[in-house]
């Protein structure tokens, strides 16, 4: 813990430290601008010393006292929080139990007694043994819980060494803290201290620290490679918890710009509200549909509030998991109908189930699908593959959709299609269901639109032959990027290589658009890129017909669109396709965006 406020460095910073963008994982949304304090949280290496026989029991006593104090500290922390932070509280509760856990307490006491060594050293050894056990665990989620054990042990060590861990002793202004990792308790204390947000090297979106940060509304970017060595105490950064980006040494204008975004994010400004009721088209009248990604019926309100022209992606999984049993056809039908009727005549795109088969093991005990240990879940039995393997489940969902199809404009979206034959199999299932419905005298729209997600590279390559069989394409960039760049962005070691602006990705998007348009097929895009104001102009330039995003992003993208003219967008589109790598695309955008969108990106 050494905030090294070095004057020389500060001067360097003011005379222009090199600007740099760091990429991490969005841990908790929000934008803040501030100076960083880099904390070195490596606890002092515990010294080893041998005890005399008559010192052993008093050492055990010293250890027990440290445990009690650490426990009291946690209990005290718990008391500060209201019951509505259930996630946070339950994390502290598990830490309270861990402090007294046999694996820590008994083992350490035994080691002190047997080896006659000091408590710090014995505790470190006990932790080492626990780590060995956890290293063997294959399940990533459970394995990551070792981080919690380490936090708890660090707290005990701090008690032993006597100095209470003050996160930010002697720092006067509000700062952004940077560290290898924080414990959930650190995060909680940050809220009451002068912390604007935090950056870490470790951690992913599911780490407890990120969960706590989100529940406290504290912006954070996690999993940033080498951030503790790149950032120096005193540097100014912009922390963008929405995109997981950090801008080191930003210009004054950029800072103001981001503070402005933050203001916009917080208080939905009148200026943007103005755009909600305007049509989404360029200055010269090129229309692009801006629609919403949602997963629950309850979000219908925000779809309307933000002026979405329909739903570009309804993730249908929620109905299957929140009640603990598989919903029947009537339940699904009622939900889909409400959605369609609520938005008619705008289109509602419902994606069929898009999850790993393992998630269904409990709901479908007879299916024999138990894939918790799939070696490559992203390449495994999931999504449309699972639906085709469980026809009864799939047919129920499709029947519900078809029955709802006469209440509005339904578009059925099939995820993860990687070959024509999969699509044809679904087509033939749909055909059979339609015949059944006819026979039963149940109304449906026989001309319902059927489309596929383009998210596997093979689908991009074959887009021309797939186009002949569908009514629309929807490009899922999150998966397409992962599959084409071979990057798992929740993996902290490679997350920084996850590059939405990689020309390979942009070319695939373009190829899909061209293949679709050649045969009159509408092409939509529904990944995070669609709602990001940096990448959205590029996508508009590549000729997409629809961008689908989280509802609150729509007014921002609409404002960009309304300040564009189609020639200028097409130019940008053809330029980015000629770039050699993502960096080149970013350079291009650095000059392009402020020139055409001075309100959003400021003049330089």
């Amino acid at each position, binding site marked *: 813990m050494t905030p090294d406020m070095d004057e020389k460095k500060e001067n360097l910073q003011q005379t222009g430290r090199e600007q740099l963008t760091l990429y991490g994982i969005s841990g908790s949304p929000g934008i803040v601008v501030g100076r960083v304090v880099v904390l070195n949280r490596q606890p002092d290496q515990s010294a080893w010393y041998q005890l005399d026989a008559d010192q052993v029991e008093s050492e055990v006593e010293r250890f027990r006292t440290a445990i009690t104090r650490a426990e009291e500290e946690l209990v005290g922390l718990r008391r500060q929080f209201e019951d509505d932070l259930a996630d946070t509280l339950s994390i502290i509760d598990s830490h309270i139990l861990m402090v007294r856990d046999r694996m820590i307490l008994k083992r350490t006491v035994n080691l002190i007694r047997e080896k006659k060594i000091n408590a710090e050293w014995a505790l470190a050894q006990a932790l080492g043994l626990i780590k060995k056990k*956890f290293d063997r665990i294959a*399940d990533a989620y459970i394995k990551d*819980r070792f981080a919690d054990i380490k936090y708890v042990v660090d707290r005990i060590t701090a008690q032993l060494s006597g100095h209470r861990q003050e996160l930010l002793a002697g720092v006067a202004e509000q700062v952004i803290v940077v560290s290898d990792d924080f414990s959930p308790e650190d995060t909680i204390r940050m809220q009451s201290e002068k912390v604007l947000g935090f950056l870490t090297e470790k951690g992913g979106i599911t780490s407890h620290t990120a969960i706590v940060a989100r529940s406290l509304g504290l912006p954070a970017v996690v999993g940033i490679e080498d951030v503790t060595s790149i950032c120096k105490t005193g540097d100014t950064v912009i922390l963008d918890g929405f995109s997981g980006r950090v801008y080191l040494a930003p210009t004054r204008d950029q800072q103001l710009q981001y503070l402005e975004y933050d203001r916009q994010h917080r208080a939905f400004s009148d200026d943007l509200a103005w755009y909600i009721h305007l049509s989404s088209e360029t200055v010269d009248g090129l229309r692009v549909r801006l629609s919403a990604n949602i997963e629950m019926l309850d979000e219908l309100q925000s779809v309307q509030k933000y002026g979405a022209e329909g739903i570009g992606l309804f993730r249908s999984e929620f109905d299957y*998991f*929140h009640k603990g049993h598989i919903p029947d056809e009537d339940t699904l039908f009622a939900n889909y109908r409400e959605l369609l009727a609520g938005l008619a005549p705008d289109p509602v795109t419902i994606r069929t189930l898009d999850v790993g088969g393992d998630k269904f093991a*409990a709901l479908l005990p007879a299916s024999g699908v138990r894939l*918790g*240990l799939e070696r490559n879940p992203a390449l495994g039995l999931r999504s449309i593959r699972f639906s085709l393997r469980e026809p009864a489940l799939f047919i129920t969902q499709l029947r519900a959709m078809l029955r709802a199809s006469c209440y509005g404009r339904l578009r059925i979206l099939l995820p993860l299609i990687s070959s024509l034959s999969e699509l044809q199999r679904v087509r033939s299932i749909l055909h059979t269901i339609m015949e059944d419905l006819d026979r039963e005298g149940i109304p449906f729209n026989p001309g319902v639109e059927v489309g596929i997600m383009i998210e596997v590279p093979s689908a991009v390559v074959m887009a021309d032959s797939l186009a002949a069989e569908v009514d629309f394409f929807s490009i899922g960039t999150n998966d397409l990027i992962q599959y084409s760049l071979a990057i798992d962005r929740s993996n902290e070691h490679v997350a920084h290589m996850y590059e939405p602006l990689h020309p390979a990705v942009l070319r695939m998007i373009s190829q899909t658009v061209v293949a679709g348009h050649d045969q009159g097929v509408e092409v939509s895009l529904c990944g995070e890129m669609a709602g990001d104001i940096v990448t959205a102009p590029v996508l508009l330039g590549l000729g997409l017909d629809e961008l689908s995003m989280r509802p609150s992003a729509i007014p921002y993208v609409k404002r960009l669109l309304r300040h564009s003219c189609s020639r200028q967008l097409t130019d940008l589109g053809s330029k980015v396709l000629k770039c050699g790598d993502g960096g080149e695309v970013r350079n291009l955008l650095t000059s392009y965006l402020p020139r055409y969108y001075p309100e959003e990106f400021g003049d330089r």
Partner: protein
Amino acid sequence: MTVVRRQCRVQNLKGIHCRVATRLAEIVADHEATVQITGSDGPVDCTSILDILSLALVHGSRVRFKAQGPDADKVLAAVETLLSRTNDP
């Protein structure tokens, strides 16, 4: 002394992680019985949440319980309810 045994599958979609293990240990502490849990490893005592976590019980894993004591039946009924939930306690 009553000894009760029970088998079930972990239904929580994330497996037995901190929150579930914590609840499990709390349930056992509230009853007059000792409870041992066995997965592909074990058995371990349910009072240690670290022991429970280290069994790495993912969604769908089969687990066996052995309870001993006056509350043996009651405690296992509560444990079974906990493990049959797909979401977090």
